[in-house]
């Protein structure tokens, strides 16, 4: 049934030339915003092949149901606005939409085909991360967990240190066939996964390394609180852990580091998602008494009340 239903998305509309169309758009968006039901709005038109008419006639035949648009949570290149989108976007989505709308995004809001292309591009990026974190079951069964873990880290661009050997970095090519054979029983003692796209699934490879002493997850964009809750499996060997600069880690994830009773050095500086870095550092230091915690510094966030106080601290230390 061809029902010519006027339904435009309830977002800031781009530039429509006709005043009539703009007024009607505004009115309908107010109607659809305020009351969250639109009669007949859920009628689905699957006419992917038929072109839609924009503008003056204001007869746009589509609806929003079933559009499974995906949007990445990690900071990725947003084709629409042409900028890196991070997690701090929660502040003012409306304003950012109005500023950065390109033609592609404008069309994607109005045409199923363009929206499907956008979804596909975003979905491809999600799948890329999943592909990077796939498990190497064959290598693991054949050559052991150390080789599988090392291959995984080196393929992602990290560095690995086997016991009694030097650091190895291989720019994305992983271990060579000879090295598989050479290292199949040599435990790994240190891993540097800085900047790698490792996520919850990929952490399986690291958790199989039972002699791991030092782990560096600096600036990993997909490591979040859920991943930290898995680190308890390395509690017997892990002595050094660095989480600096990870955008998704908050104090809730840091709370589950208390299982790491062997930990001696912990770096939790520059975590943007932690709400109160100074207080968090104090609490983490209390939680892990044997560990040296490198963080923001407990004095960060403390306000000096009077200006004289600040001058005094500059000139002479305040007696304890």
């Amino acid at each position: 049934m061809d029902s010519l239903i006027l339904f435009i998305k309830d977002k800031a509309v781009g530039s429509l030339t006709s005043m009539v169309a703009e007024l009607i758009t505004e009115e309908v968006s107010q109607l659809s915003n305020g009351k969250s039901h639109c009669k007949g709005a859920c009628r689905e038109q699957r006419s992917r092949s038929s072109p839609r008419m924009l503008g003056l006639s204001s007869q746009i035949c589509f609806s929003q149901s079933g559009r499974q648009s995906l949007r990445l949570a990690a900071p990725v290149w947003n084709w629409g606005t042409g900028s890196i989108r991070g997690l701090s976007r929660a502040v003012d989505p409306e304003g950012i939409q109005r500023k950065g709308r390109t033609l592609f995004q404008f069309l994607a809001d109005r045409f199923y085909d363009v929206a499907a292309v956008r979804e596909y591009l975003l979905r491809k990026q999600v799948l890329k991360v999943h592909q990077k974190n796939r498990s190497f079951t064959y290598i693991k069964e054949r050559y052991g967990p150390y080789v599988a873990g090392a291959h995984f880290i080196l393929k992602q661009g990290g560095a690995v240190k086997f016991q009694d050997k030097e650091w190895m970095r291989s720019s994305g090519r992983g271990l060579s066939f000879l090295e598989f054979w050479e290292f199949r029983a040599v435990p790994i003692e240190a891993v540097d996964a800085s900047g790698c796209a490792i996520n919850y699934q990929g952490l399986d490879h690291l958790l199989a390394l039972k002699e791991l002493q030092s782990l560096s997850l600096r600036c990993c964009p997909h490591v979040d609180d859920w991943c930290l809750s898995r680190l308890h499996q390395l509690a017997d060997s892990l002595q050094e852990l660095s989480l600096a600069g990870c955008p998704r880690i908050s104090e809730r994830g840091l709370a589950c580091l208390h299982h790491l009773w062997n930990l001696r050095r912990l770096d939790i500086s520059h975590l943007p998602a932690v709400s109160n870095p100074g207080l968090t550092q104090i609490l983490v230091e209390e939680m892990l008494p044997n560990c040296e915690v490198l963080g923001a510094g407990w004095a960060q966030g403390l306000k000096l009340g009077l200006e004289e106080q600040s001058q005094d601290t500059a000139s002479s230390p305040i007696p304890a």
Partner: protein
Amino acid sequence: MPSLPFSEWDGKVSEIKKKIQSVIPGGAWNPLYDTSHLPPEHSDVVIVGGGVLGLSVAYWLKRLEKQRGAIKVLVVERDHTYSQASTVLSVGGIRQQFSLPENIQLSLFSVEFLRNINEYLAVVDDPPLDLQFNPSGYLFLASEKGAATMENNVKVQSLIKEEHVPPGQQGLPKAMLALCPSMGFDSGAVGLENEGWFDPWSLLQGLRRKVQSMGVLFCQGEVTRFVSSSDRMETPSGEEVILKKIHEVHVKVDHSQEYQPVECAIVVNTAGAWSGQIAELAGIGKGPPGTLQGTKLPVEPRKRYVYLWHCPQGPGLEAPLLADPSGAYFRRDGLGNNYLGGCSPTAEEEPDPGNLEVDHDFFQDKVWPLLAQRVPAFETLKVKSAWAGYYDYNTFDQNGVVGPHPLVVNMYFATGFSGHGLQQAPAVGRAVAEMVLEGHFQTIDLSPFLFSRFYLGEKAQEHCII
């Protein structure tokens, strides 16, 4: 018209536009009576109750439908502010420490859903969801009597989670013992991964946003009547059975006598604490007691209190959600030494569920002594605030009711979870959607949770209830 002042001109223009819209073909042609504020006249599925379970069913129905836009879903919610809804008043915990395998599987899938929530519930151009999940885990303590049951439960859980629990690990790890030095217990079980607590309001908002973008309609109103048609059928043994099919739902608008008869094919009852009333409206339970017609839905509202207190010397950042064998529980809230907790009252102490007033004496008399006994630091604490919420309590066996009713053939239930509905909502929503679309459970088999167990008397008893 040009003689009107400018401010009235706007109102006139909007009225004219409304009239134009109603005349343009494709809009509803109601020149006499504007019904745009009422729910639609037809809908394939009507979901009664817009809490986390109702929205989860709506999400999975739209996600699992065979063709995009094949199913029209309407969610009817009486209170859009969710002021009495169990979802938002919940403490928000999620755990896999149950005794029934089905419950463990439901929680496992739900936790995987929450972990990947930004892939499931992504809406274009909207910021990602932050559930504020605390992966600190649940710590269940067991008295001497309960230690054997707990050991069994842990074995079942590890089988389902496919993990290896080393023997003797039922004793607590050293880190936990450091929490409360003078505990007088023998054993406990702590979940190290995939357990914790999160913010239910953000889950609700995320589901609502996603479900609206998928085309589900929302309406604010109260279901007052079900109009059904009956059919007489004979069982193989010759008994006569009357099967009913609901074909209309009357939705009454707030503060008005207007109602809209919504023609529907399937009704899903996710009304939470009020599911019993909705079931009675549909005629479930009207019959001689002891027969299938006379079996009511045994879900009723039970009031539970949650208290927020401050204790400067309390357990630190590493504290899990501790559940005492006496029924008291608490968890840390934020970084400022605040704790949330409560206790389930015994059958004699059940408060009156007529309102959501808080009884502070209950804390003084019942909850505080139990807490102070378990954690000595809690002897000095100060209650900062408290609230009350409803459990959709299943008086039969405290486990959920999922699936269709045997006699009212197109009413599906997803209710009665007695305090663990929030943590199982994503998986239960999927199960109900599978039941509606395929006719049987596909991923997790919830046959022990069907309605017929109330008539047959088969309890699916869950032992680890807080």
